[in-house]
C-alpha cells in the first residue's frame, strides 16, 4: 500500500500538493557501475545540518526576504560526531538533530552496514543543504548541482542517496 504523502502536512496545503503538476515525463536512470559490494555511497540531506566549526546556513537573509533560501551546502565528513552537529532550518523543528542527527543523515548506520559488507564503502565526505529553495532551483541546476557532481566524481562515488527533509 502506498503511504499517505500528505499525512503530516498542514491540511490547507494538501490540495495544492495533490494538484502540483507533473514536472518531468522523460525517464532518467543510471545503473551502478560496480557490484554493490564495491560501491562507494554518499549521503545527502536537506535538513540544514552543519558542523559547529562551519558557517551556519543564512537564516537572517531569509527572515528579511521570505522568498529567498540559502542555496549553499556543507560538506559533512563520515566520522562526524553528534556533538559536532548544529542545524539551521526555519521550516522544521531541528530539536531532534541535536539528539541524533542520523534521523536525517545516517552516517552511523551506513558505517555499520559498511562494516557488515552490505555495500562497498561510505564516502569520506557527505553533503547537507537547507532545503528551502523557493527561488534557488535555477541556482542549484546551474551552479551547485554541477559543482557537486564534480565533487562526487572526484571522490569516486558510485551512488548518491538523497533525503529531502
Amino acid at each position, binding site marked *: 500500500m*502506498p503511504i499517505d504523502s500528505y499525512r503530516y502536512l498542514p491540511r490547507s496545503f494538501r490540495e495544492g500538493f495533490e494538484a502540483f503538476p507533473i*514536472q518531468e515525463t522523460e525517464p532518467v536512470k543510471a545503473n551502478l557501475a560496480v557490484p554493490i559490494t564495491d560501491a562507494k555511497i554518499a549521503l545527502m540531506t536537506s535538513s540544514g545540518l552543519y558542523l559547529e566549526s562551519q558557517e551556519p546556513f543564512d537564516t537572517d537573509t531569509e527572515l528579511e526576504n521570505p522568498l529567498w533560501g540559502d542555496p549553499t551546502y556543507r560538506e559533512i565528513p563520515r566520522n562526524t560526531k553528534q556533538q559536532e552537529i548544529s542545524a539551521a532550518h526555519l521550516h522544521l*523543528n531541528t530539536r531532534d538533530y541535536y539528539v541524533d542527527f542520523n534521523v536525517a543523515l*545516517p552516517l552511523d548506520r*551506513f558505517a555499520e552496514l559498511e562494516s557488515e559488507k552490505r555495500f562497498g564503502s561510505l564516502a569520506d565526505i557527505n553533503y547537507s543543504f537547507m532545503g528551502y529553495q523557493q527561488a534557488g532551483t535555477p541556482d542549484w541546476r546551474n551552479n551547485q548541482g554541477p559543482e557537486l557532481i564534480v565533487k562526487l566524481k572526484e571522490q569516486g562515488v558510485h551512488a*548518491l542517496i538523497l*533525503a529531502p527533509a
Partner: protein
Amino acid sequence: MPVLARLVEEAGIPTVVVTMMPDTAAKYELPRILGVPFPFGHAFGAPNDIEMQREVSEAAIGLLTDESAAKVRKDLEHLEWPQDDRTAYKDWQPSEPSPIVGYNANRRDKLEEKNKDQ
C-alpha cells in the same frame, strides 16, 4: 532535491530519494523512490531508533541493486512512528512559523482588504 537527483542521474551516478512525500517525488519521474511514513525532517526514522534507521538505510541500498525496471518506488508503510499523528504533526514544525507563512498570510490579508474596498 528531485531536480538534483535527475542531474546526478544524467551525470551517470545512480540515486535513491528517501522521502515522506513519494507522490511528489514521482512527479519528477525519478528512477528510485523510497517512501517513508515519517514526519518531516526524519527521513530515516526516529532519534535513537537504530533498528528503524537501519531498515530504511538497508532498503535504500536495496533499491540501488534493482535494475529490473525503468523506475521503482517502494513504500515502507509498515514502519510505525512512535508518536500519535497529532503530536508528530505538532513536533516537526518550527517553534515560530517560517517567514514564507507570515509573508503569505500578509499577502492574503492585503488581498482581502483590497476586495473589501472594491
